Each structure stands twice: as structure tokens, then as C-alpha cells.
């Protein structure tokens, strides 16, 4: 084997992790960075539709067929991330669409209104017929994490909570890339601690963030993860035993349980890479900007809301005008994702943007989703949270198209920006990009990502028959199994008790532990636990269970880390609920009452003998002390 090029993938969404996986399987040296935990923040803001292509059959038959092929591929390689919900397409001229589907070999059956409502009782009664098509639901979090883990198995260096802060270009080519890893949890008073806010903060604050940061030369050797863990010989990299260190608190043999609470400095690292693929989603223009390159895009605005439970069991879609994204209502796991585009001409006042709102849609934009979807589904259930997604597009109105921009044209060889596309077709897009980059280095190796199964997606026998439910309640087991796929038995088979720590989502302690141990997750990153397990995404949005999830960090991490992690986790959840302050307000008030009142997490008292002396110690009322027992053991 000749020279192995080192490729940096910027962005840990479905596309970025898919790219890293493909590159790694083809034997290239790969590093992937993402400022958040993987699969966040933007990944979650998709509609959950694993499209069959039917929606696009009329307008764009090539794309429709591509969707169908990828839809089938994902069922084969990532079975635990997809659910065969079937799909119903509603809207005008279904006969025409059916013919177009047939031309694309997409099975489409025209159902009468009655037959459609029988298939899906959650349909709006006004719907007068539907096309039954092989759409499905996809969990973008599980998919992204699985791809990252697989990439790592093949030797990729996956670095969550790491941001590109500079791309140094010399003589018309990328020379060095400066990345900065922020430990988690950062001090609550310091930098923004939430995954979501991080990503978005870069949108507005790029100038500040990346401008004057002098690269820390001394940091190279101090990087805790990268050097030692890249597993060149394919061996499972070993992590130092006995406790966990938070990146940034480096220092070989220090007791990792000590001093983890204080200010944790970011680690700066300079990477000598041969090629950079920019897959930073709508943040891609900012990343390209670090190399003084531009990405001509326009910004669309879309809002996704997350409804509790499954008001529909089928993926229900309504194709929009040509070029616009369809309205979708798709059940994913224990939620239903509702997505709609803000069309020009719709209540523009509903979509204020600006530094304050960031990724938070206005409540009016949330109303707009509900309004757009009425007429599609009968009820949208209780909305739990909502997220705004600025979508960067090369060509407005062609949102699902992907585009590859080679910045060689802008005098920067070695930087490629990939933009757009869908989760449905992400693997194919990654394949095309990898072909192209490999071509730059004269490497010709076939893509295998459509054949190799992802971790969790391997075919396994049904475990329930063999081992029962691992001592868990049946429903807990079923939910766990859906998320864990082929890893179910490895994760749920524990020696001792394995209590549920997130009741709404049925997440057990061992599943949280497995997520914390996952090498593709940043140390102590509960945001990463959330995307891997769905813990804290249920009714209370972490209000009831967030602290239980956070204490799983103890005793490996000290109390201060646990508290900060808990705060960061709950604040991230809080932000997503704010725009749905109507329906979610009761839960928010309960969460606030529990944490501010009952737990008193808003106050932290350190008290000496004299401090507590001013309070009632019960001694005024000796009658209240039990007299049943001789008091031994403790002598004052």
C-alpha cells in the first residue's frame, strides 16, 4: 500500500459520519470533528421520513428511484434505525402520481378515503384518498451514531465536541487545520454548555470565535484522545482503565476523580491533513469561510415539531409544490415528527430570526406547523418541543438535491464542500464524494457501505425467546431492543439490578452506561447519551429523569461535574420546549417546580457548624425523637 491520505471530515451529521465510514472502509486515514455530540444539533431536526421516492416520482424520477434503492439498502444495513411503517401520500392528482410511481417501479396503491382511514385512523377525516407506498421511518440519531461507531471500527478518529477553528491554506492548498475540543460539561457560567446552542452560536459568532484564537502550540502532545487512540493496526484501542478523564484535564497519571469540577480548558490541536470534506450542514459556508472560500447559498427556514406518542402509525406525507419539501408526519420511536417548510407568502411574521432566537422557532412558527398539517392528520398530539432549521441551499427550491463544491476553483485545493441532500440518500451521496476524493489521490477502491451492516443492524435471532426480557418489564425490553438492535443482549445482560433511569423512554442504567462508554461519545457528554438512548426525550423532557441520568456519571466523575452535566442537559431540553410554551407549559412548570423548589438546585449552600446553628435542629421538641431505640454507635 502506498501513501495513505489523511482526510478530515467536518461535521458529524448523517452525511459526515457516512463519509467517515466510507473513507475508513476504503482504508484512508480519517478524522471526523463535530462541535456537538454527534448527530446534534441539526440532525434531529429532520422529518424522520425514509422516503420511497413516491413523493418525487412525477417531478424527478431519477431522484425517486435513488430514494427507493437507498431505502432498501438502509433496511438491510441498518435495520435497527428504520421502522417499516409504510407510507400514505395524500394530496391532489393521486392518479397521476400513481402512474409516475409505476414508471419508477415504486409500488403505489390507490386507496379510497375509507380504505385509507382504515389503514391509518390518524388521518384527517377530510382526506379523500391516499396512495399507499413503501415509505418508512428512520431514526437519524441511531443511524448517525451507528455510522460513527462503524467508522471507528475501521480506524477513523471520531472527535465529538471538537470544532474547526482555522483552515490554513498555503500555496493554494490546504496545509493545516486547527481544531479545538471543548470538554463537557463546561462550567455553566462559562461558554454555552448545551450542544444545540454550541452549533448555532457558531452561526452568529464565527468572527469572534475563530478570529483571534492563537493556536496553542504546546497542545499537540497534550491531546488526550487522538494520538494514542487512532488504532492504526486495527487493534481495539485501549483506554486507560480505572476512571475517566475529561478532555482538557489531561495529565497522565492524575487521579481522574479529582479536580474535574473546575474550569476545563479547551484543547487545541493542529492536524496535518491532506484533504478536508466539509459536511457541516447549514454551517458549511462558515467552515468554508475559514479557508477564505465562499459557498453561495440561500437560507430556507423550516420548522420541525416533536409530538408525544404516535398520533399516526404510518408515515403520512403530502407533496408540496414542485421544489418544496413535502409536509410530513412520521412516527419515529415513541414520538411523531411533524415537519413543514415556511413557504413564501405564509405568515412571514411567524419566523423571526436574529441573534436572540437562534435555533428556536417562534411560537407562531410552531402554530404554522400545526396549521399546515391539519388536513393531513386528525390530531397532532401534544407537542413537546420544536426546532427551527435554517436549510442552506445552492439552488432555492431544489432542497433535496445535493451539491459538491470543489474549492480548487477558489484557489484552495484540498477542500470540498458537500451540501444538501437527505438522510434517505446520504449513503449514496457519501459514496460519490468518496469516489471523487479517492480519485484525487489516484486510489481506486470500491465502495462497500451498501453491503456491510452497521453496528446494531446485524441480523440477530429474537432474543426474547432465548433469555426472556433480561429481568425487565416487557415494554422496557421492547423499547430497548428497538434502539439496540443486535447489541441488545450485550447491553442489557447485567449481573446486578438494571433499573430504568428514564421512565418515559424506558432507558435502563446499563444502556446509559453503554452510551457513556461509547468511544465515539465525548467523555461525560450527556448530550451524547441522549442521542444514543433517547433518555430525557419523553414527556417531561428530562425534568423527572435528567438528574438520574446525570448521576450515572458518579462516582467516576465528581459531584460538580455531575451537576454541570445535569444543568447542561436540562437547559438543552428547556430550549427546545420554549417555543411550544402553550401545550408544554404544564410540564415545564412541573420541571421548574421540581428542580428549583423540591430539589433546590438553584441554591448551593456550603455550611459550617455556625451556619447551621441558626436553624431548627429538632431539639426543641424532644418528644418527637423516637424513644424506641437505644442510640448507640455514634458518640458526640
Amino acid at each position, binding site marked *: 500500500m502506498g501513501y495513505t491520505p489523511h482526510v478530515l471530515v467536518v461535521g458529524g451529521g448523517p452525511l459526515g459520519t457516512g463519509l467517515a465510514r466510507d473513507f475508513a472502509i476504503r482504508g484512508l486515514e480519517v478524522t471526523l470533528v463535530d462541535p456537538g455530540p454527534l448527530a446534534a444539533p441539526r440532525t434531529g431536526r429532520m422529518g424522520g421520513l425514509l422516503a420511497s421516492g413516491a413523493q418525487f416520482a412525477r417531478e424527478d424520477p431519477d431522484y425517486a428511484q435513488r430514494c427507493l434503492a437507498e431505502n432498501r439498502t438502509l433496511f438491510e444495513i441498518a435495520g435497527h434505525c428504520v421502522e417499516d411503517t409504510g407510507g400514505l401520500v395524500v394530496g391532489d392528482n393521486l392518479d397521476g402520481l400513481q402512474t409516475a410511481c409505476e414508471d419508477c417501479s415504486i409500488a403505489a396503491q390507490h386507496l379510497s378515503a375509507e380504505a385509507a382511514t382504515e389503514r391509518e385512523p390518524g388521518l384527517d377525516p377530510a382526506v379523500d384518498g391516499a396512495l399507499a407506498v413503501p415509505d418508512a421511518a428512520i431514526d437519524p440519531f441511531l443511524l448517525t451514531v451507528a455510522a460513527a461507531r462503524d467508522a471507528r471500527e475501521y480506524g477513523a478518529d471520531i472527535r465529538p465536541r471538537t470544532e474547526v477553528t482555522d483552515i490554513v491554506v498555503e500555496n493554494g492548498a490546504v496545509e493545516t487545520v486547527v481544531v479545538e475540543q471543548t470538554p463537557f460539561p463546561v462550567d455553566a457560567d462559562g461558554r454555552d454548555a448545551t450542544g444545540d446552542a454550541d452549533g448555532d452560536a457558531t452561526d452568529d459568532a464565527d468572527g469572534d470565535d475563530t478570529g483571534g484564537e492563537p493556536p496553542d502550540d504546546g497542545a499537540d502532545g497534550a491531546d488526550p484522545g487522538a494520538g494514542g487512540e487512532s488504532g492504526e493496526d486495527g487493534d481495539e484501542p485501549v483506554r486507560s482503565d480505572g476512571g475517566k478523564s475529561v478532555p482538557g484535564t489531561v495529565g497522565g497519571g492524575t487521579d481522574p476523580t479529582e479536580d474535574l469540577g473546575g474550569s476545563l480548558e479547551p484543547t487545541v490541536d493542529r492536524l496535518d491533513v491532506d484533504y478536508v470534506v466539509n459536511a457541516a450542514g447549514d454551517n458549511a459556508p462558515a467552515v468554508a469561510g475559514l479557508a477564505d472560500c465562499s459557498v453561495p447559498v440561500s437560507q430556507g427556514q423550516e420548522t420541525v415539531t416533536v409530538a408525544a406518542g404516535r398520533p399516526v402509525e404510518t408515515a403520512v406525507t403530502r407533496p408540496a409544490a414542485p421544489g418544496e419539501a413535502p409536509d410530513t408526519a412520521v412516527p419515529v420511536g415513541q414520538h411523531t415528527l411533524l415537519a413543514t417548510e415556511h413557504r413564501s407568502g405564509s405568515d412571514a411574521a411567524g419566523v423571526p430570526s436574529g441573534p436572540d*432566537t437562534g435555533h*428556536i422557532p417562534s*411560537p407562531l412558527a410552531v402554530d404554522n406547523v400545526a396549521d399546515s398539517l391539519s388536513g393531513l392528520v386528525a390530531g397532532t398530539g401534544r407537542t413537546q418541543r420544536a426546532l427551527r432549521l435554517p436549510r442552506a441551499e445552492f439552488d432555492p427550491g431544489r432542497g433535496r438535491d445535493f451539491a459538491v463544491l470543489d474549492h480548487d476553483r477558489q484557489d484552495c485545493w484540498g477542500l470540498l464542500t458537500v451540501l444538501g441532500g437527505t438522510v434517505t440518500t446520504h449513503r449514496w451521496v457519501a459514496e460519490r464524494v468518496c469516489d471523487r476524493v479517492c480519485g484525487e489521490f489516484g486510489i481506486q477502491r470500491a465502495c462497500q457501505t451498501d453491503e456491510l451492516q452497521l453496528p446494531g443492524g446485524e441480523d440477530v435471532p429474537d432474543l*426474547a425467546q*432465548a*433469555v*426472556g*426480557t*433480561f*429481568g*425487565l*418489564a*416487557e415494554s422496557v425490553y421492547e423499547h430497548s431492543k428497538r434502539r439496540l438492535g443486535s447489541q441488545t443482549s450485550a447491553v442489557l445482560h447485567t*449481573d*446486578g*439490578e438494571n*433499573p*430504568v*433511569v428514564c421512565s418515559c423512554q424506558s432507558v435502563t*442504567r446499563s444502556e446509559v452506561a453503554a452510551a457513556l462508554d461509547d468511544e465515539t461519545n465525548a467523555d461525560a457528554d450527556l448530550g451524547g447519551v441522549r442521542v444514543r438512548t433517547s433518555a430525557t426525550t419523553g414527556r417531561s423532557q428530562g425534568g423527572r429523569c435528567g438528574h*438520574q441520568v446525570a*448521576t450515572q456519571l*458518579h*462516582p467516576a466523575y465528581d*459531584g460538580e461535574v455531575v451537576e454541570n452535566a445535569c*444543568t447542561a442537559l436540562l437547559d438543552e431540553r*428547556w430550549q427546545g420546549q420554549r417555543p411550544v*410554551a*402553550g*401545550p408544554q*407549559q*404544564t410540564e415545564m*412548570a412541573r*420541571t*421548574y417546580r*421540581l428542580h428549583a*423548589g*423540591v*430539589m*433546590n*438546585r*438553584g*441554591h*448551593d*449552600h456550603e*455550611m459550617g*457548624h455556625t*451556619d*447551621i*446553628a*441558626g*436553624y431548627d*435542629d*429538632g431539639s*426543641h*421538641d424532644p418528644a418527637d425523637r*423516637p424513644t424506641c431505640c437505644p*442510640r448507640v*454507635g*455514634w458518640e458526640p
Partner: protein
Amino acid sequence: MNGRADATPSPSGEDSLGDPSETVTPSDTPDVLVVGGGLAGCFAALSAAREHPAAAAVELLVTAADRFDRHPGTIDVLGYPGRSTDDDSTAATEHRQPVETPFDAIDALPEDHPYRRLGRDRLRTALALFDDELDYSGERSEHNALVPTHTGRVRPTARYPDWMAAGLASRDEPMGLVGFEQAPALDAAFVADRLGERLPYEVTAVTVEFPGRVTESPAGPVLARALDGDEAPSGDVGTPDFDVVEEEPPSSLTPDEEQGPAREPLVERVRSELALEGRVGFPAVLGETAYQTVRDHIESALYAEVFEIPVGPPSVPGRRLERRLHAALADAGVAVTSGALEGFEADDGRIDRVSLSGRDRAVESVVLATGGLSGPGLVADRAGVHEPVFDCHVDHPDDRLAWTEPTLLADHAFGRFGVSVDDELRPLDATGRPEYENLRAAGRIVGGFDYDAEQSADGVALVTGGAAGRWSSP
């Protein structure tokens, strides 16, 4: 203070507190109808009935069955008087010491705070009635006590039940904590670490397996029931076919022959793990009805004082408090019904008739004690915030994003949502006039202040409930 013995059923072995033997039949024409069965509603009904024991027909309508599932069972009067504007940086708020004597801090509150509006004498009267009726501890102290929380903090409170008495953080003496593997709500090692770092004495911890098999989550009520009945829980799991497994099945999967008792195996496990301590704390799941017996049992077995730390929701201590309140209500002759108020008729600014359980009835006066946003008292939707029972005016910003701040532990506008009241606690309409002459509000639904931030919700419930009840009584 006397008269407690008459007012409260005496605690016997299987706690009879809160097992009201007699239920009171609702009158056809209740003089006072209290809507809402939280602390404020119970207390309003109790006060109304005690005001005129013979004359008044008082009915309490419980509108949400789970009101006490979020109540930790303590009575907070005032922990932190309102944020002062000049030092409201997070750091300053975070380290502000809790109030030592609530009565001394009342003057610093704004004039329209319920405590200022009703006055400290009414607060004293309300607390005295509570002490007489409920048999809680702390009644002879003007001082707040500090109690440990299940997340390892301390919290000021004015009244605490007997089962928390030994666990006061403000008692300068080491403590041991016991956690249950199956109840992650209280991670004993974590709480002990946190408390030990913050208090001037040692806090130790052990975690044991609760006897039996627990698959329910949250586990609290199941554990409490197991101890009440002294029968280890049996869980609810799918049936494994062990023949198919090659490995040795983990012990947690082996079916138990029979469930057996819960109490004795529990104390045995604790005794073998725990170093001797003068006082030992458990998550507050030591029985929902027989908690005195259970605690006595554990105390004598461990030779230690035993206390409990509230966990939840669902909060077992909240349910205990509810049972005690209902026993007192029964004793006072209050009729308790549950359901929703289906409608009402008003004439000339007075509520004349209500329809309840399909029947129309005349009423003299009504107390609205349905709770705030966290209870069912206020409802929020696209159109804003409403009070759904009588459609009282609720002042709030139109912009829904302005209801909340970007982080959870902040000074949120919604914390103060509620009805505005006059000096007689009558909800006011948008023009500042009483909505109805004979409608009064009590508890969290009275807006203007963030009782969670103040840690004053229970004191406010008692003083507003007490006053509204008494004023409504003919």
C-alpha cells in the same frame, strides 16, 4: 398548643391517619364549595368547616387526583425572599443563605405579597391550625429547618413530618444514607458525597437491593406498598426459556420460589452493609399507609433513628400528607367529592349555582384552589393562559417566548402567572374589579410571585386557604 389529641386520630400500629372511616355525604346546598384538592383547597375547606363547626356545609371538589404526587410532604413557609434586583447575578442567588426565621423576613416582601396582604397574624393562625390538625414537627420553632434533598442539596422548610425529623441537615450530627439499587431516584453514594462536602459532619452511604423483584418505574409506590403489606414485590417480567441460553442466567433472572416478607430481609441487608450510625436515612418509600410501623421496625432493628428523604414524583410523602389532610377533613365534617365542575350560573356578580356530577346545586360561596400552571389550575395554549373553571382573568405577555428564560433555573415570567386578587382574595378581572363577589382564590393560583423560587408555596397555600375558607364560611 393543645387539642391535638381530639383533632387527630391517634396514630396506631397500622397508621389510621388518613384512613377516614366515615365519609361525609355532600349537602344539596353546600354553603362553601372549594374547587381543587391540593394543600390550599384542603386547608380552605378545613378552615371553613372549623370556623362554624355546626352551621357550615362545606364541600371539597378534588379536580386532579395526583396533586400530592408532586408534593414532598414538607411545609415551606419562606426560604428565600424575592430576588433583590441589585444582586441578581446567578452566583449571588446561588449562594444566598436560606432564611432562618420566616416571620422576620416577611417585611422585606412587596406589599401585595399574600403574606403582607394577609398579615403575619393570619399566617400564624394558619400554621397553628395546621399544627393542631396535622401533627407535624417543628411547630414550636419560629426557625426554618434545613432538610436534605434527594439530589444532595439542603432546603429550608418550616414544618416537617415526624418521619423527617431525625434527618434534619441542620442537626449537627453525622448521618448514614441507604439507597436501593432498584430506585435510582436517590443515589445514596452521590447524595452522601454532596451533603458531606457541604455540611460540617460526615455522611456515609450504602446501596442495597430491595428484597424481591422490582420492574416498575418509578419504583417508589411499589416499594412503599411492599413494605405496607410486608410482602416483597414480584415484578412483572417476560418469561424466559432458560433452556435456550448457554450461559448461566444472571441471578436477577432466576425466578423466586415465593416472594416472602419485605421488612426483615431489608433490615438484614442494611445491617450487614451499614456502619453503625446514630441516624439513618432512606428514600421516602418506607410505606404509604403503615409507615409508622415500618419505621419503628427498622429503627429497632438498626438501633438508630430512621428518617426519610422525599423522592418523586410520584411522591409517597405527598400521599401521606394527603391522607392526613383527608382524615382531618372527614373529622371536620367536610364532604369530599372528585370530578370536574361542569358549569355554573352567575347572576348580579355572584355565583349562584354550580353543576357537579350532573347535578345542579345552589352555593353560597366558592373558593378556587385549583393550583397554578403545574397543577390543573391554569391552562396554556396558543391563545394564551386561562383559568379554565371560572375563566378568571390571568395577566400574561402575549409573546409566548417571553414566558420563559433560556435556562431552566432562571427567573421565569410564568412562575408568577395567576389571578390577581383584592384584599379579600377575590380574583380581579382585567379592569381590576372582582370577577364574582363570592369567589375567592387560594394557593398557587394567586399570581404575582414565584413561590418555587421563594420556597413559600405551602405557607401561601395555608394562609390564603385559611383566610379564603374562613371568609367564605357563613
